[in-house]
C-alpha cells in the first residue's frame, strides 16, 4: 500500500490537472450546434475551424439536409437551422424563427459531348427545360444547332441526369427552369425534389458529375464549386437580357448585386434569372434559421457572434471555396434584424 502511494498521488494530480485544463478549455470555447443544408457545409466547416481560434466559438455543424435542419430547429434540438430553400413564412412565424442569408452559390449545367470543351456550348433555360421535359432528345436538335453555329454537334442522344436525393441544388435549378420556361412551371414546378419526366438520378453532386462523365451525351447540373474543383465541362447560359454569359465568379457576383433584397420578406429573394448586365442566371442564397427566443441566451448570442464574424472576416474563405459573399448592405440589414428581434428572457437584445 505504501509503495503505491506516490503513483496514486501522481495519478490524482494528473486527473486534477486534466480536469482543470478541460474546464478552462470549456470556458474559453463557446459551443454552438447547427444542422441542415449540405450546400454551404464546406464553407461553414471552414468558418467553424477558423472561428475557434479567432473568436472562441466552436461550431458543430451537421449537414443532414435542409428539411432535416428545419425540423431540428423547430424542435429546438440545435442552436440554429440551415436551409437552402427559404422556409415558408407561416412556419417561420409559428416557429418563432428569424431567417437570414449567409452566402450565395451558383449552379452550373455540365455536359459530356465528345469534342466539346468547358464553357463552349451555349444553352438557354428554355432549351434546358425542353431537354429535361424530353422534348429535345438529340444534341444536334435544330434549336441547339442554331444557337451553336460555330460548333459541330453530334447526333448523340441526350442523357439527362439529376439529383436523386432531395437537395437545395435541385431547388435552385428547378426554380430557374420554372422562372424561364412556362412549360416547366406547369408540368413539373420547383422543389428540393420533383417529378422528373426523363433521365436518371444520382446521389449528390459527385454522383451527378460521375454519371455525366460516364454517359456519352450526358447533361446535368452541379454546384459551381464542385464543377470548378473537378474541371467539369460547364456551359454558357443566356441571361435575362438575352446575352450569353459564362459561369465565373464575376457573373455570379453581378447577379447577387442586382438582386432586390430590400423588398423581400425574410430575405427570401429569388436571384434566379436576374436582370442586369452579365448576371449568371442560376444563383441562390442559403439561409440560417435562428430562434427569436433562444433556450440558452449565451448560445444564441454566440451564433450571432459567429455569423457576424463570418460576414466580416469570412469572405475570403468563402470566395476561395467558390461561394459568393453577401453584399455589405444585406449584411448590415441582417445585423439590424439581430438587434431588434433576438431577445433574451429579460427582453434585452442579445446582439451587441
Amino acid at each position, binding site marked *: 500500500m505504501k509503495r503505491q502511494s506516490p503513483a496514486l498521488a501522481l495519478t490524482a494530480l494528473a486527473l486534477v490537472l486534466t480536469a482543470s485544463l478541460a474546464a478552462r478549455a470549456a470556458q474559453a470555447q463557446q459551443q454552438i450546434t447547427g444542422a441542415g443544408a*449540405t450546400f454551404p457545409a464546406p464553407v461553414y466547416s471552414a468558418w467553424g475551424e477558423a472561428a475557434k481560434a479567432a473568436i472562441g466559438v466552436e461550431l458543430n455543424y451537421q449537414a*443532414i*439536409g*435542409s*428539411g*432535416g435542419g*428545419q*425540423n431540428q430547429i*423547430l*424542435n429546438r434540438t440545435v442552436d440554429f437551422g440551415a436551409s437552402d430553400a427559404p422556409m415558408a413564412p407561416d*412556419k417561420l412565424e409559428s416557429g418563432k424563427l428569424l431567417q437570414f442569408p449567409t452566402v450565395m452559390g451558383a449552379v452550373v449545367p455540365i455536359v459530356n459531348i465528345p469534342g466539346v470543351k468547358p464553357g463552349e456550348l451555349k444553352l438557354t433555360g428554355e432549351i434546358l427545360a425542353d431537354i429535361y421535359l424530353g422534348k429535345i432528345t438529340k444534341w444536334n436538335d435544330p434549336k441547339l444547332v442554331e444557337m451553336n453555329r460555330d460548333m459541330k454537334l453530334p447526333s448523340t*442522344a441526350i*442523357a439527362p441526369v439529376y439529383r*436523386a*436525393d*432531395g*437537395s437545395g441544388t435541385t431547388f435552385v435549378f428547378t426554380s430557374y427552369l420554372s422562372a424561364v420556361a412556362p412549360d416547366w412551371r406547369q408540368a*413539373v*414546378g*420547383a*422543389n*428540393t*425534389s*420533383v*417529378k*422528373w419526366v426523363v*433521365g*436518371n*438520378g*444520382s*446521389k449528390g453532386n459527385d*454522383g451527378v458529375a*460521375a*454519371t455525366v462523365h*460516364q*454517359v456519352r451525351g450526358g447533361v446535368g447540373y452541379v454546384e459551381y464549386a464542385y464543377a470548378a474543383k473537378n474541371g467539369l465541362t460547364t456551359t454558357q447560359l443566356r441571361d435575362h437580357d438575352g446575352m450569353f454569359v459564362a459561369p465565373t465568379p464575376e457573373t455570379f457576383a453581378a447577379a447577387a448585386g442586382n438582386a432586390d433584397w430590400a423588398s423581400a420578406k425574410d430575405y427570401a429573394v429569388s436571384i434566379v434569372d436576374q436582370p442586369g448586365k452579365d448576371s449568371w442566371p442560376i444563383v441562390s442564397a442559403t439561409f440560417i434559421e435562428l430562434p427569436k427566443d433562444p433556450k440558452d441566451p449565451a448560445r444564441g448570442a454566440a451564433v450571432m457572434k459567429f455569423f457576424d464574424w463570418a460576414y466580416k472576416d469570412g469572405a475570403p474563405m468563402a470566395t476561395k471555396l467558390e461561394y459568393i459573399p453577401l453584399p455589405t448592405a444585406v449584411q448590415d440589414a441582417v445585423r439590424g434584424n439581430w438587434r431588434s428581434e433576438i431577445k433574451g428572457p429579460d427582453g434585452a437584445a442579445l446582439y451587441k
Partner: protein
Amino acid sequence: MSQVASTASVPARRSAISGDAIFAAVAVAAGVFVLVLLGAIIISLFIGGLPSFRAFGLGFLTSTDWDPVQHIYGAAVPIYGTVVTSILALLMAVPLAFGVAFYLTELAPAWLRRPIGTAVELLAAVPSIIYGMWGFFVIAPFMATYIEPNVIDTLDGIPVLQDLFAGPPFGTGLFTAALILAVMVLPFIAATMRDVFMTVPPVYKESAYGVGCTTWEVMRSIVVPYTRTSVVGGIMLGLGRALGETMAVTFVIGNTNRITGNLFGSGNTIASLVALEFGESENGSLKLSSLLALGFILFVISFIVLAISRLLLRPRAVRA
C-alpha cells in the same frame, strides 16, 4: 470444478432460488423487450404513415405518381422496383449458390473446401457501400459500354425480349442493381445450402452411389429432395436481405420514379427512395408520412418473407 460448484451451492440454496428468479425475470424481460420493440417500430411506422394512407387510400399502393411539388405520392414504383430487383437477383444468385454449395460438399478436394467456404462467407462481410461504389464505378460503365448496347442490338426484333431489354444504355438500372444484389445475397444462400446439404445422412448417398448413380443423379434424386424445404428457406433469407438493401442499390438503380417496363431502364426501390428523400422531408408533411408508409410496407413485405423462411427452415424432426 463441478464438485466445487455443487458443494458451494448446497448451503446457499435459498439465495440460489431467489437468484434464479431474478435471472429468469431478467431473461424474460430481455425476450419481451425485443417483442415490444418490434411492435413499437411497426406501430410507429403505421401511425407515421397514417396521414398518407388516409389521403390516398388503397390507391397509394397502385399509384405511380411521386410528385413532391403537387404533394401526390404513390408507392407503386418503389414496390415494383423492390420486387423486380430482388426476384431478378435471386434468379441470378440461386443457380450460382447451388453450384458453390454442390462443389463444396461433393466435388471439392478437402483442402480446398475451407478456403472457398471462407471466401464465400467473406463476401457477406463486405460493407454494402463498397458494393455500391464498385457497382457504380466499375460495373455500371462496363454494362454501359459493353453489355447493354450489345444485348439491345442482339435482341432487337425478337418479340418480348426486345422490349424487356431496351432503353438508353446508362449502365445503371434495374438489371445492374439486381446484379449487385445477386453478389450480395450469394453468400447467405450458398452458406445455407452448404450447411443443409451436409445434413444429408451419408448412408443415403452411399447407397445411391452403390446402385450406380452418378454424382449428378445423387444430387438430383437424394440431396435436393431431402433438403428441399431448407433450401427454399435459405433462398427466402437471401430474398429478405435483397428487399431491404439500401446503399448499394441507390448507387446503381438510376433513381427514377417511373416504371419503364424494361430491365435496363432505371427505377427505384423502397429503401433507396426513403434514404434519398428523408433529409428533405419536413415534419408533418405528407411526404414524410408517405416515406414512413413506404417503410411500413417494406416492413410488412420483409416480415412475410422472413416468416416463410422461418417456417421452412424449422428443424426436420418437427415435420417427421
